[in-house]
C-alpha cells in the first residue's frame, strides 16, 4: 500500500517540480485584499513586459507574512503602505515620509521605492443612510453615538495604529467584535453590524453605498503605497518596478478597485487596461487561465500538499505508535504532545512556520503533517493496546519473534482502527490545506482567499466545492481500501470466544 502511495505522490509531484525548476523568476507577492492583488498584478505585468520571468505569490495572509517572506528572500517585492511600515514593522507612531522610513529600513536591508501616488489610509465606514439618519459625519460623532454595533477586521483590532489607538484618541466606550474583512461589507449591508473599518480607496465603498467618517483628530497616519524590496535587488528590476511611481491617485485607485470588486473584471484585465491607458504597456489579449485549467491545477497542488503530508504523518504516526505503545506512560505523553499540536489554530501554526521554513509549499506541508499525526498516532496506540491479551500471549507462546508478532498478528488486528485514523487525518488535511494559501502554497485555498478578498462568493465556491468533493472522494476511497485490506468479519469486531 505504501509503495502505491509513493507512486501516486511522485505522479502528482512531477508537473509542479518541473515548473519550479525554471531559472530564477522575480517573485511578486500580495496581501490578501483586492488592491494588493491589483497592484501586484500591475508590477508583474511591468516586469514581464521588460522580459523578466515572474512568479506570482498573491494572497499572503497579512503584513507580517509578507514582511517575513521578504526578509527571508522568499519573495522579492510586494506593495506596502508607509503607515504600515512605520507602525507594524518599525513599531513607531506618527506619519513618516518615505525618505524617513528608508533611513530606518536600511538597517534591515529593505527599501521602499517611490510612492505609487495614492494614500489608502484606514477609514471608518458606515451606511450612507444610517449616517444621514444619525447625523454622523466625523469619528467624534460616532464616538458619542455609543450604541452602534462595531465590528473590525482582526488586523485592525490588533494593530497599534488601529482600534487600540483610535479608542484612546476619540475616547470610545463601546467594544467592537472581530470580523473577516471580506465579510464585513455583507454584514453591514444586511444590518448585522453598523460600523467597520475600511480602506479609503476601497472599491466596495461604492458598491454598498457606504460613506466614510472624517478623521477629525487626524488620528490615522498616511498610508502611501509603494513597492517594498530588499536593497540587494538588481537595478533593472528596480527600474521596472519604479515605473508605476506617482501614477495612481486616490480616485483612480478607488475606481480600479471598483472595476475588480463591483464589475467582476479580473485583476489581469484591469491592470492591463490601466497600464495601457497611461501608456506603460501595450494592450494584450492575454486571458486569465480558464476555469477548468485553474481548477485542475489547484486540485493537483491541493492533493500534493495533503498526500505528502499524510504520507509523512503515516510513517511518523505508525513508527512512533509501534515504538511507544508498550509503555502506557510514554504513550500518554506522546498522545498528549500530538494533541497539543492539534489545539494550535491552523492559521497560527502556518504563521509560526514562516520564520522557520519561509512561505510556500514546504512550511504548508510541515504544518499539515503536524496536524495529521494525532489521529494516526492515537488510533495506532489505542488499536495495539486494545488487542485481546490472550491473542498477544498466544502469539508470544507459539514462538513468534517480536517482529513477527507485530507483522503477522498485532498490526493486522490493529489495521481497521489504524485505517480509520488515517482516514480522519486525510479528511482533516484536505480541509486544513485550504488555509495553506495564506502562506502562498496555492491549492484550492487560493480561490477561497482571493474570493474573500474580492467578496466574490462565486470564487470562494470554486475552492470550497472541489475541496468538499475531494474530502468525500477520499472518504470513499478509504472505505474501498478498507474493504480490500480488511476481512468483513474483522470490521464488525467479531472475535472468537
Amino acid at each position, binding site marked *: 500500500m505504501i509503495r502505491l502511495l509513493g507512486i501516486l505522490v511522485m505522479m502528482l509531484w512531477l508537473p509542479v517540480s518541473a515548473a519550479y525548476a525554471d531559472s530564477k523568476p522575480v517573485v511578486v507577492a500580495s496581501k490578501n485584499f483586492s488592491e494588493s492583488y491589483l497592484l501586484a498584478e500591475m508590477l508583474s505585468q511591468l516586469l514581464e513586459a521588460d522580459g523578466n520571468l515572474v512568479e506570482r505569490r498573491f494572497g499572503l495572509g497579512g503584513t507580517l507574512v509578507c514582511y517575513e517572506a521578504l526578509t527571508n528572500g522568499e519573495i522579492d517585492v510586494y506593495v506596502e503602505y508607509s503607515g504600515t511600515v512605520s507602525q507594524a514593522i518599525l513599531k513607531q507612531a506618527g506619519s513618516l515620509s518615505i525618505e524617513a522610513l528608508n533611513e530606518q529600513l536600511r538597517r534591515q536591508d529593505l527599501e521602499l521605492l517611490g510612492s505609487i501616488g495614492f494614500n489608502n489610509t484606514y477609514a471608518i465606514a458606515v451606511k450612507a443612510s444610517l449616517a444621514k439618519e444619525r447625523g454622523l459625519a466625523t469619528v467624534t460623532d460616532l464616538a458619542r453615538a455609543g450604541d452602534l454595533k462595531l465590528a473590525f477586521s482582526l488586523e485592525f483590532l490588533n494593530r497599534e495604529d488601529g482600534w487600540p489607538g483610535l479608542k484612546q484618541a476619540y475616547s470610545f466606550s463601546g467594544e467592537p467584535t472581530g470580523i473577516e474583512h471580506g465579510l464585513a461589507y455583507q454584514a453591514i449591508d444586511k444590518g448585522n453590524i453598523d460600523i467597520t473599518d475600511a480602506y479609503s480607496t476601497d472599491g466596495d465603498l461604492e458598491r454598498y453605498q457606504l460613506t466614510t467618517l472624517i478623521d477629525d483628530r487626524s488620528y490615522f497616519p498616511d498610508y502611501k503605497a509603494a513597492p517594498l524590496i530588499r536593497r540587494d535587488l538588481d537595478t533593472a528590476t528596480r527600474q521596472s518596478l519604479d515605473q508605476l511611481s506617482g501614477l495612481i491617485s486616490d480616485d483612480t485607485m478607488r475606481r480600479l478597485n471598483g472595476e475588480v470588486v463591483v464589475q467582476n473584471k479580473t485583476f489581469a484585465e484591469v491592470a492591463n487596461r490601466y497600464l495601457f491607458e497611461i501608456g506603460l504597456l501595450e494592450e494584450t489579449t492575454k486571458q486569465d487561465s480558464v476555469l477548468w485549467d485553474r481548477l485542475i491545477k489547484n486540485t493537483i497542488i491541493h492533493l500534493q500538499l495533503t498526500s505528502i503530508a499524510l504520507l509523512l504523518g503515516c510513517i511518523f504516526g505508525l513508527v512512533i505508535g509501534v515504538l511507544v505503545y508498550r509503555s502506557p506512560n510514554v504513550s500518554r505523553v506522546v498522545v498528549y504532545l500530538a494533541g497539543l499540536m492539534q489545539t494550535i489554530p491552523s492559521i497560527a501554526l502556518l504563521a509560526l512556520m514562516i520564520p522557520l521554513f519561509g512561505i510556500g509549499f514546504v512550511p504548508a506541508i510541515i504544518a499539515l503533517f503536524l496536524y495529521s499525526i494525532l489521529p494516526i498516532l492515537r488510533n495506532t496506540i489505542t488499536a495495539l493496546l486494545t488487542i485481546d491479551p490472550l491473542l498477544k*500471549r*498466544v502469539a508470544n*507462546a*507459539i*514462538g513468534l519473534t517480536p517482529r513477527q508478532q507485530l507483522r*503477522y498478528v498485532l498490526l493486522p488486528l490493529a489495521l481497521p482502527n489504524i485505517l480509520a485514523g488515517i482516514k480522519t487525518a486525510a479528511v482533516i488535511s484536505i480541509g486544513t490545506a485550504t488555509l495553506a494559501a495564506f502562506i502562498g502554497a496555492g491549492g484550492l485555498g487560493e480561490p477561497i482567499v482571493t474570493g474573500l478578498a474580492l467578496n466574490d462568493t462565486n470564487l470562494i465556491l470554486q475552492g470550497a466545492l472541489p475541496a468538499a468533493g475531494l474530502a468525500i472522494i477520499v472518504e470513499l476511497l478509504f472505505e474501498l481500501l478498507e474493504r480490500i485490506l480488511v476481512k468483513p*468479519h474483522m470490521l464488525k469486531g*467479531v*472475535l472468537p470466544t
Partner: protein
Amino acid sequence: MGYAVQGGGLFPHMSIFENVTLIAQLEGWDEEEIESRYQYLFELMNLEPLFRDRYPNSLSGGQQQRASLCRAMMLNPPLMLLDEPFSALDPITRRGIHDEFRKLQRAESRTMILVTHDMAEAMKLADHLVILKEGEIVQEGSLEDVTKHPSDEYVASLLTLQEGGS
C-alpha cells in the same frame, strides 16, 4: 514447545489453514511438507476439510479448539503445554474431543502437560498426576498411585467429587 489455551486463541484475521500453518511457514518449511502435515493433523482431529479457508469465527467452540490443537502440534514438538484447553466446551463436545486427544497421544507420543480444574478430565487423560493447591504441589505420582493412596484429605475430596461428577 506446542501451546494451546482455553478458547483456542486462534487469530481472527487468519483462515484456519493460515492459523495452523503460520509457524511452519515462518520456519521455512516447503509447501508439500506443510500440506501433508496439515492434512494429517486435520484428519487426526476429525475436522472437515472445508474449514480450511474459513475464519475462526465461523467455527464452533469445539472445532476451534481442535484447530488450535492442530496448530500446537504443527511442528511436531517434543513437549506440549495445554492450558485448560477444553474447559469452555459443553460436556458432549468435551467427551468427543477427549477421544480425539487420546487418539493423538497414541498416534504421536510426546510429553503433554495439561492444566485442568476438571478431575474427571485429568483422570481420563493423564498417566502422571501433579495436584496443586495454592501454587504448591500436594501430591505427585502415577494415576494409580494417587487414586489408591491419596496423601491427604484435600486429594481424597477431589477424587470423591469426580466419582459423583461423572
